[in-house]
């Protein structure tokens, strides 16, 4: 494999772009903090902190989805992802970085007692409210802080351990026995991450971070819905980086066969997202109980109507019709377009999940949202590029590498 370019070098253009995006983002962040974040108006404050919240949560979760992808393919004894595995690994190095930012934002919101964002922080109201006092064992500041710390800390730690074991396969060829024990150890580490992922992203974390904004309301679909959103955008992000590196002449062993399988994940999980979107909506629509319909009232019939249904078109109709064909999943241009569209669609989805509850009377989408988005995109490009450049792009001696080279669908 002498012809393989193992080492990624960060192009100057990428640095310039990421710095420009971060610059724009920082300007927006400072402007937002001055005009809204620390103003005396509660709505302005909610606008600023809400925008920070959904952006940090969205980006942390979609980067974490990359590590989930590695772990589930490892558990399934998958071999096809080996040729581009360093890309989801590099994306998952963002979890500690975005995780810390999320941690700071959420802890600030909780500690500074912003009960117009998290209504359950208002201890006087909770004491008088039978529903909220019933939930108080789960929805309280202490539990929130401990569970958030544990979640972000363990995602980072268990993810780091997965990346460490992946590096072992770069050093020396393995015979059958070392190979088998290597696969077994990877399986154990992947299983640990997956279990913790299920306990956090698959259930408790979306309840705590986002669903509790509507403190009285609950939906059993909510966490899975959030997971589906973040996983399908995570796969799209992996697809974008794979295509970018292919264009730059790296990843010689990755080809259309691998791209088609990534495309299949994007297609399948768009359908899965819609299944949860619809299940959540239909059950509440059918039962028609005021306690439950309160969540959908201003989203379906109020100011968020446009965004709510645009969301369905971008995240369901477009992937369904465009990614269905085999030839479109093998087309680099079309997959790039769909990946950008899906990430944008789910970003808008997170927007309406958080801001739809914080600003019920009018849609706040504007310069602040896109400014903060550009901050996160810039950070992502900068740090993922650095993570890619710090390791070889292929783990040469992984026992399953050959399966990836001869992969055919």
């Amino acid at each position: 494999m002498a012809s393989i370019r193992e080492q990624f070098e960060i192009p100057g253009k990428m640095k310039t772009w990421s710095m420009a995006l971060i610059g724009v983002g920082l300007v927006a962040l400072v402007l937002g903090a001055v005009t809204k974040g620390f103003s005396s108006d509660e709505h302005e404050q909610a606008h600023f902190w809400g925008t920070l919240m959904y952006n940090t949560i969205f980006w942390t979760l979609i980067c974490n989805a990359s590590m989930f992808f590695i772990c589930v393919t490892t558990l399934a004894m998958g071999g096809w992802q080996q040729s581009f595995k360093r890309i989801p690994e590099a994306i998952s190095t963002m979890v500690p970085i975005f995780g810390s930012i999320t941690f700071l934002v959420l802890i600030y919101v909780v500690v500074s007692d912003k009960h117009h964002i998290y209504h359950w922080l208002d201890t006087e109201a909770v004491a008088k409210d039978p529903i909220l006092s019933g939930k108080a064992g789960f929805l309280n500041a202490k539990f929130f802080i401990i569970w958030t710390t544990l979640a972000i800390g363990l995602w980072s730690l268990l993810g780091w351990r997965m990346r460490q074991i992946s590096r072992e396969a770069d050093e020396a060829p393995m015979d059958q026995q070392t190979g088998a024990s290597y696969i077994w150890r990877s399986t154990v580490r992947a299983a640990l991450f997956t279990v913790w992922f299920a306990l956090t992203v698959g259930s408790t974390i979306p309840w705590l971070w986002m669903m509790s904004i509507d403190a009285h309301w609950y939906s059993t679909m909510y966490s899975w819905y959030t997971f589906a959103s973040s996983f399908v955008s995570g796969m799209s992000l992996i697809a974008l980086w794979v295509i970018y590196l292919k264009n730059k002449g790296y990843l010689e062993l990755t080809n259309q066969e691998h791209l088609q399988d990534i495309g299949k994940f994007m297609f399948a999980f768009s359908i899965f997202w819609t299944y949860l979107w619809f299940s959540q909506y239909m059950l509440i629509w059918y039962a028609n109980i005021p306690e439950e319909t309160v969540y959908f009232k201003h989203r379906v019939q109020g100011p968020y109507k446009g965004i709510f249904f645009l969301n369905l078109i971008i995240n369901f109709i477009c992937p369904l019709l465009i990614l269905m064909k085999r030839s479109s999943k093998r087309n680099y241009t079309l997959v790039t377009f769909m990946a950008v569209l899906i990430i944008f669609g789910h970003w808008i989805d997170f927007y309406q999940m958080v801001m739809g509850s914080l600003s019920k009377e009018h849609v706040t989408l504007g310069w602040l949202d896109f400014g903060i988005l550009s901050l996160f995109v810039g950070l992502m490009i900068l740090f993922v590029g650095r993570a890619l450049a710090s390791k070889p792009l292929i783990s040469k001696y992984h026992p399953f590498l050959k399966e990836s080279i001869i992969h055919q669908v």
Partner: protein
Amino acid sequence: MAKKKFVVGCFDDEAVLFPAVKKVRTSGYKIHDVYTPFAVHGLDHALGLRETSLHTAGFIYGITGTATALGSISWILAKDWPLNFGGKPHFALPAWIPITFELTVLFSAVGMVLTFCYLCQLAPFVKKHHFHARATDDLFVMVIECTEKTNADDLKAFLASNGAIETDIQVAEEGWWLGRYDKDEHPFQNKQTVVA
């Protein structure tokens, strides 16, 4: 029942089969089909077969199912015989989505199975010629169609020089015909007849 003349070459190794397929095609012969005991990756590409249109048919069946479900339910429940179910509007779209989904899946699944059977000519009493009984066991059987210009003996020698362990010439029905299995001889008991 149009009978045709075929030259049959048997290979026992994939690694020999692929270069042979390539040579036979570049030499201008028309490969009728290659019968293999298992699905061989890349063989369809090597044979230059076009992609199946089964999935396009499946999409059309699915759309038909969607249209049937939405059309019939909306006509029945909103126009022909409107009933009040729990105060919901007559045109209660969210409630119909599960049925619409089911009918889409049902139509596309059943339609695709039937289309698949039709494309493969699989049906009760439909029979096809077996070129070699061991094609279902351990041999890759390449069947080449002869035209009036083809010298069958040259072709046999050509296949043998490309690694075929067994070659013969058969005159056989190229399509399918109706027959009954119990009245036919079993292919394993029947020694392949060689027609010169």
